[in-house]
Each structure stands twice: as C-alpha cells, then as structure tokens.
C-alpha cells in the first residue's frame, strides 16, 4: 500500500483537507505572483473569514439535518441583529450585556419560529426560512428608522477588529467556536444523533431518536450564531446598513459545501467550513486586488458553488449506490486489510 492510497483513504474520511490545500495553493500562488501577500495580509483575510465561519457553522448544522434543508433566513438575521445591537447598546459599554442578550433572544426567537414551521407544520425548510426572512426584512426597515446614530461600543469594537500579538481576536473566537463544534459533533450524543437524523430520518426514528428536537436545535443554533455574528459584524464595520447580511447567504452555503459537509446531510466538518471560509474570502479578495468588477465576483462565486455541487453530487451517488450483490465477499478483503 503506497502513500497515495493511504492519503486517498484518509482524505475520504477527512474531507476538510481539500479546502485546506486550496487555501495553501491559492495563497502560495498569489504570494509568488504578486509579491503582495504576506502573513499579515493573510491575517486580514482570516479576520474577514472569521465572520463567515460563524455563520457557516450555523448553516452547517441545518444542512446536516438532511433532506436539502437550508436556512435562508441567516442574511436577514445578521442585518436585523446589527440594527438591534445599535438600538440596545447605543455605543455604551454599559449596555453591552443587554445587547448580547437581545442578540441571543433574537436568534432564539427566529430559530424557534423556523423550527415551528419546519418541524411542527412540515413546511419545506427553504420556503419557511425564506418567508421568515421576509418578515425580518420589515423588522429591519423599522429598526433602521428607529436608530439615532451609528455609535459602536468600544469593547465590542475591540472584540470585532482588535488583535492580540497580531492575531485577530475574531479569529481566536472563530477557531474556538470551530473547536467546540468539532468536539460537539464528534464526542457528544447530540452530534451523533444529528448525523443519524441527517443520514436516514426513518432509521433514526425507528432507532428511538426523537428527530423533531434534533432538527429544531439545528435551526436554533443557526439563528443564534447568525445573530451573534450580526452583532460583531455591525461593530466591525461601525454601524449597520440594509442588505449587509446578503452576501453571507450564498457564501455560508458555499463554505459548508466547499468544506466537505455533505449537502444531502449526515456528515459535517467544522474544520472544513473554517478552511472553506478562508478560501472563499481569499478568492473574493484576490478578485478585488486584480480589479475584477463586483459583478464578476458574484459570477465566480456562483460558478464555484454549482461546480462543487455537481462534483459532490456524483460522489454521493456512487457512494450510496447499493452494494447489493455479493456484499459478503466484498467484506472479506476489507477485513484482511485491517488485520
């Protein structure tokens, strides 16, 4: 068994490696070609990617519940949360606790609403979350009229854009979040239940898993993370504007799929989402540096998503193909390999 087969087996179990390799390659090529990329420019990219990672992790939980579930309300939640933060914190560190509580509450409320529609009423997730997003859009417009100024609490501002020893604090937060998520997915009962529900909902139900609460919690996690991200993003850009969450809709889905989480559900990788976020931001930044118009950036992102999906679609199909005939014989060499 040579190194290549070892790697290909290993990479099948650790799909995040492809996004990581992508990051490395793009960064190396850019450093050599332009001479403008350095570790410090990478830290800027990582800072931007941290925001995307947080939303992406939430989206990943929803995608992992399977059946094509996607949370389309994240963009509206991010925008509304940034406005709510301005309204509650009013630039005072003293109000920070209220602001954080408001953001968490907003996330919980939206997540609960989405869960009610999806789990309780059986409305397809995309339609339910799309409709929720529309309701939130009105709330955003109303809060846009209500805000008096764009003052940001200094503490929050420091959290969102500060650095310790050159490392963005946001990156530390994102990495800690990714670590916690990885742990939860791998080593808690909840992570296993989520994976089971995403792989085969009927089998999960028959294995006595209560599928409703598991799916609902994924939607709630997604909304809460999007809401907290809105709070931090607002502090980072120093205010809030309508449509500020919009880019995160497609990018969060792209980060999830690109990172190696299966779009059909059942298998998630937080590390992959982290690397894919960095890769996406790297691509976008590169396009900006090259001077591509904003339109071209959208086109490239769209193409990346469709391309990755088309590839992943085939992968999932071949793997799920029934291994009906002579299954017993196939298993024997597999056993031999191990001994």
């Amino acid at each position, binding site marked *: 068994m040579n190194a290549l087969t070892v790697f290909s087996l290993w990479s099948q179990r650790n799909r995040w490696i492809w996004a990581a390799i992508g990051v490395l390659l793009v960064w190396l090529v850019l450093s050599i070609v332009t001479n403008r990329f350095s570790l410090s420019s990478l830290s800027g990219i990582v800072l931007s990617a941290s925001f995307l990672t947080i939303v992406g992790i939430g989206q990943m939980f929803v995608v992992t519940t399977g059946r*094509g579930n996607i949370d389309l309300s994240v963009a509206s939640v991010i925008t509304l949360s940034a406005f709510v933060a301005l309204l509650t914190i009013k630039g005072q560190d003293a109000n920070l606790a209220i602001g954080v509580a408001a953001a968490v509450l907003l996330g919980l409320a939206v997540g609960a609403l989405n869960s009610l529609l999806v789990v309780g009423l059986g409305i397809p997730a995309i339609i339910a979350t799309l409709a929720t997003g529309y*309701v939130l859009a009105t709330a955003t417009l109303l809060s846009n009229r209500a805000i008096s100024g764009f003052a940001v609490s200094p503490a929050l501002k420091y959290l969102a854009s500060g650095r310790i020893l050159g490392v963005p604090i946001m990156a530390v937060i994102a990495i800690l979040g990714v670590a916690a998520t990885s742990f939860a997915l791998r080593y808690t009962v909840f992570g296993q239940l989520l994976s089971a529900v995403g792989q085969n909902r009927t089998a999960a139900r028959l294995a006595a898993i209560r599928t409703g609460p598991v799916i609902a919690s994924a939607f709630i996690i997604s909304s809460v993370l999007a809401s907290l991200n809105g709070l931090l993003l607002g502090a980072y850009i120093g205010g809030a504007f309508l449509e500020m969450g919009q880019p995160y809709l497609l990018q969060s889905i792209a980060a999830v799929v690109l990172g190696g989480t299966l779009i059909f559900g059942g298998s998630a990788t937080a590390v992959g989402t982290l690397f894919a976020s960095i890769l996406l931001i790297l691509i976008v930044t590169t396009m900006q540096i090259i001077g591509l118009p904003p339109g071209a950036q959208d086109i490239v992102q769209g193409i990346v998503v469709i391309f990755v999906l088309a590839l992943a679609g085939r992968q999932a199909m071949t793997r799920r193909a029934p291994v009906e005939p002579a299954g017993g014989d196939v298993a024997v060499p597999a*056993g031999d390999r191990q001994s």
Partner: protein
Amino acid sequence: MSQPVVADQDRAAAKAPAAPVRQSVVSLTGITKSFGPTLANAGIDLCVGAGNVIGLVGGNGAGKSTLMRILCGAMWPTLGSISFADDDVNFADYGTGEAQRRGIRMVHQELSLCANLSVAENFFLETPGDAASRPGWRALYRARARAALDAVFPGNGIDANAEVGHLSIAERQMVEIARAAATPGVRLIVLDEPTSSLDLDRSKQLRAFIRERAKAGLAFIFISHKLQEIIDIATEIVVLRNGRTAWQGQVADASIGRLVQLMGGDANPVHQHAVSAASAQDVLVRLSGPLTSELGRDIEIVRGEIVGLAGLEGSGQKELLHGIFGADAKQNGAVTRHAQAGFVAGDRQKEGVFPLWSVLGNISIGALARRPALGLVSDRANREMAAGAASKLRLDDSRFQSNITELSGGNQQKALVARALVADTPIILLDDPTRGVDIATKQDFYRLCNEIARSGRALVWHTTEDAELLACDRVLVFAGGRIVRELTGDAITESAVVGASFAQPADRIASARHKDAPATRLGRRLVDAAPFIGLATVLAVMISANPAVASIFGLDLLLMPALSLVLVTAAQMFIVGGSEIDLGVGAFAGLVSVLGATLLYDQPWLGALALVAALAAYAGLGGVIQARKIPAIVVTLGASFIWVGLGYALQPTPGGASPEWLTALFGWSLGFMPTSIILIAAVALIVFVIDRLPLGVVLRGFGNNPTAMIRSGWSPTRHALVRYLIAGLFAGAAGLSLTAINTASDINSGNSFTLLSVAAVVMGGCSLLGGIISPVGAVAGAVTLSLIGALLGTLNVSSDFNAATQGLILIALLTLRSLTADRRSEQ
C-alpha cells in the same frame, strides 16, 4: 429431498400435451437469480403460449415477483435464457423497453398511474404515438379509455376525464388493467394481484374478459392469492416455492387443497419449540379494540415469548409493529405498551442502516438514542457495549471499523439486531428481518431470537416467510387489517397459517373509508379560493378608498406592474410543477431586462444572440440538476449570483433604454379594456394551453410520479431541459416586460419576484410536491401579491410592512394548507 424429482415428473407430464397446441409467445428457460448467497429463483422454466392463462401462485417470498421482473426486463437473471417464438434474445439486449416492444405489459401491484392526471391522459402516457399536438388529441384518448374500460368492466361508470387521484383504489386498478389490455400489439399481460381491491362482480367481469381475449390468442399470467380465482380462470398453474417450481400442470389436476399443500407443506424445520418461559404476570403489550374483534378477546404479550405476525402481505402486520413502537406517542386505545420497545427494520436500506457510519457507529446509536443529548460519547465504552452484543450474534468485532455498507445483507441485519440489544429494551419488534439474508445467517438468527426471548424479553416478529413462524411461541394471523386467528405451540404449522390467512375476513374494513371532517373540507375550500377572495378584497378596498381606481386608466396603472410578476410566476409554476423551486428566477428576469435595455437596444443582433445564450444556460441548468441529482435550490441560488453578476458587469448602475418595438409591444391600447388585463389574461391562457398539450401532460406526469413515467419509457433529463426552457421563456418575457414598462433596466428589479412567485404559485393551489399547474389561481395570486404595496399605501401603512405582509401571507397559506392537507392524495 424427494420433491424436485416429483416436480420434474409433473412438469414433464404437463408439458407434453400442452406444447404443440398453440404457438409460443415467450419462454424462459433455466432462470436462476441470486442475491448474494440467496437464490430468489433457481432453475425455473416458464413457457407461455398464445391464449394461455397461467396462474402463478406461491407463498410470500417464493420468487414470483423476481421471476416477473425478469420477464418484463426490469431485472437480469444470473443464469438462464429468454426466447420469443423462435427468436432467442440475449438478456444483455433485453430491458423494459424491449419487453414492451415485444408486447409484454405488466399491471403492477403498486399501481403505476399518475394520480394528478385524468384517466384519458394516463392512457396517453402509455401509448403516446398517436398524439400529434393537434387539437382534440384528448378526445381520441378519452374515447380509447372509455372503450377499453367498457370492454373489460362493462358498466364501470368511470369518467375518462376524472383525475385518477379522485378515483377509489378499485377504480384505479380497473383503469390500470384496461390500459394494459388496450395497448396495441400486446401479446402477454401479467396481472399481479389484479383482484386484491376489486369486488366480486368486477373480479368476475375481469375473468370473463380474460377468457374472451385468451380465445383470441392473448396470453395472461395471473398472480393471485385468491386460489379459487386461479382455479376458475387459469388454463395452467405454476406453483413456486423457495424460488423453485414446486409444481406445474393443467388446472384440471389442481385443487385448492392441493395448491395450499404445495405452497407450504413441509419445510426444513426452523426451530424446535422450547418450553416457553413466559410468565402471565408480566404483560408488556396489550392489544384490544377493533384489532382483535374477530377473536373476541384481548391479546397480551408477555415477557419471554416470541409472537409471530403472519398473513398475506399488507394485511396489517406492519401497522401493528409501528403501532406498538409509537404507542406512547399517541394513545389510540387499540395498543397499550408498558415498556420500552426497540425496532429492527428489515428494509435495511430505507429504514435501517446509517450508510455513512461504521458498523460500530450503527450499533452504538441504539444506546445513544436513549441518553441525554449533552452526554459524552466514548469510543471505548461503545466498543465494549457493542462487543457484548456482537459476540452473541457471532458478528466478528474486527469488522467494527468497516463501513456498514461493505457488509453483506445478513451481517448488516446482525448489526441492526445488535443495535436493538444495546438499547436493552424489554420489547423488540422485528420487521421481516431475514429478508434477503442467507440461510446460515438465518439459522444464527433463529437461535439468537430464542436466546433473547428466554432471557426475559418479548419479541414481536413480523415475517413474510411463513416457514419462520415455526420459530414462534405464538402466531397472530392477520387478514384485512385484523387479527383473525391465534395459533399456539404445536398448532403452528405452515398449512394452518396459510389456511387462516386465506380466509376472507367477515367484513372488509376497506369499505369503511375515512371521511373528512366538515371543518377540514371547509378549510381546504377556503385555501383553494384564497387567491380569488384575496384579489376581490384588495380591489374592493382600493376602489372604495379611491373610486378612480375603477377606471380603465386607473386599473391599467395599477395592474401593469403586476404583469412582470405574473410572468415570473408562470415560470416558477412550471419549476414547482416538477417538484423543484427556482431561487434564481427573479435574478434571471433582471438579467434579461438588463440585456434588453443595453445590448438589445444598442446592437439588436448581438442582443438577440445574448438572449438566446442566456436562455440556453438557464435550460442547461435544469439538465444539470436532473442529470447530477443535485438540489435545485442551491444550484439556482448559486445561479442567481451568476445572473446578478452578469447584469452588474453589463450595467453597473440602473439605466439603459427600451427598444421602441419592445415598448410598443406592451404599450398598445384597445381603449375599452385595460391593456394590462388583456396581457395578464393572455399569459394565463398561454400557460393553460401549454399545460393542455401532450407536453404539458408529460411534464405534470414527471412532477407526480417519475417512476411511473420512466416505466412508460419517458426520458427524465430531456424533460427537465424542456421544463426549464419553458420556465426560462416566461422569465425572459418577464425581464423584457420590465424593460418595456420601466423604459430602463435595473439588475435588482427582479430580485423581489423570486419569493413572490413562490408565494403566488402556492396561493394558486400548486403543491410544492409537484405535479399541479393552475394558471388562473396562480395569476390571481400574483396580482393580489403585487397589489399589496399599493393596498398598504391606500391604507396609509408604511411600505416597510410590504415584505412582512407578503411573508406572513405565505406562512399563513402554507400553515392552513398543511393543516388541511389531503394526505391520501399526496401519497
């Protein structure tokens, strides 16, 4: 085993006189089909002559369906050959299409009609050749359907225009039989349990028809569990047992008693009854109510016993298993459970395995499912727990790390049983666990079941293999959804089970159809009328607030902007009709609008070329989605970024100009009627016409029942392309209308249409599950939604509430729809 010898002699005796009489239609020789180590068919010969009516009988799992699948080209045998008349055909060249060309038609037990289409349209799907898209093609098929139905079932009273979904099961069965019988050039019809849902009169009519057509040379294979029918209709009978021909001969030599004996006389003894350790004190499950009304007493399942559920497939055994499993969720009275229950599914792919996980993961989830969600998982603890269960099962624990799908069916099943064991529940429910499992594993399995039961658990075992019931302490025999017999101890024999399950229940519960509550019906009507009520209300409010609205000019001004949304809705409706959703349709309309106001204005030829290219890209997207089986939502969301990006690249800020001819196209006036109303009505009419064309029927068929469509020989990818092409044309027209109406373009002008179009389609009565096109309702919905902004203005409500109102309308409608859903028609 002396049996094969007897069978051979019988077969030889039977064949000798039969062979020379008639010309042969098709003959199968030496058919063997193995699934892994299991032989579903073993060396079966079957020769069908013109005018033969072959009665095919056998117990559950005898190999009938496998043999018929091979005959119809849906499956290739491991060994064996097929020939038509004297024409040998290689199985490699043989498929469903070839079987149909050679005149073989099968009426499947699970019906393959499109429930959303009319009877006549379903006839069209099977023989589309004569439907040149000329007007009146439907009348042709209507006449054909009526003639075919009357030929088989005189006085059937089925309306050829009726939607199949509205017919009773018996009527659907009649349609399907008539459809197969009416096919031009048909030479052999396979009927799989055709009379299972027909009453006696219809069954007699069918048999009379078969007799008559058989005289004319048409051949039939008649599969039925109703043996008296077989004796009545068949000219020859073939009895299958354990994948082999147990007997083959003339009907004159057969009797019901003999057939029952042949189907399940002696079998290799599965299990010798151990003394039951059951103790009457420890009742785990109690069955009562209508379920046990035939017995006249309740049934109690206690610790330490194995209770088998027997009967013909689909007589209520599965329902009882699921009823016991879910008994604490809803108290339905008939089933009471006093302890936790674990479930072992026999349909491993669909209901059992988690395909991404290792064997260990698949086993330990049984215990994890019953732990608190925030508990920690330890590989070592899992392994120790699973090892205990696996050793009992003789499941090699060196395989724990292999992916579950690498295991054979038998070993997968062992893992599923191990899952139930680690869950450690007092009750274990087994749903036909030995399906497709080799004989050695089966023996392991029986021994294990015995051990589990003796260790103080109760096993409830549904099996489709009658021989396995010998392993049970008690057998409950089902018929027509009820328990009709209880067999215990030595009374459990295959013939007793077969005899009891063939006994017709005193009263069939099939007739007692579930009637909808009046409130539900009212709710459903309200949902259906919602777009019209909404439109009327909105217009009434606006006219009462400002009477000038009612003028021609006023209406035109109000409704012209609705035209674009109506067009996008038409596009979305075709996508939703295929049970997908396009999240990029609004952006695509925006892109076309930009193309119209820039390229088409400056360089008409280049502009036209760009429009064609955009359309091709849009249609291609549909092909990719179908061919790669990837979620349409994400793909179209990604595509929306491409459309918007292209638009930005062409035109970074709103502007441009509309070509004169384009403006004129939307700007004419008849004077007596608002132009916008005429155009909107025209869109509805065009959608209506497309939907009524054969093409529209095929597209709706795919939305409802793709399996049936593929069975009838239609290509899914080609029709996905066509579907997206039609949608693209409507979305493109929407984009051009935006350019013409605004005399400029803005790439973002179409974005809000995406959700609104989904809402309008849902309002209009289309199901998100697909298969329904409702032009008038969806158009009314689209107009209503586009008037919301103007309505809020009239009511002095801030336009900020526009989005929320639209979102809430969508949520309210979907909620109402999900609460009043007609579950039966959606299955």
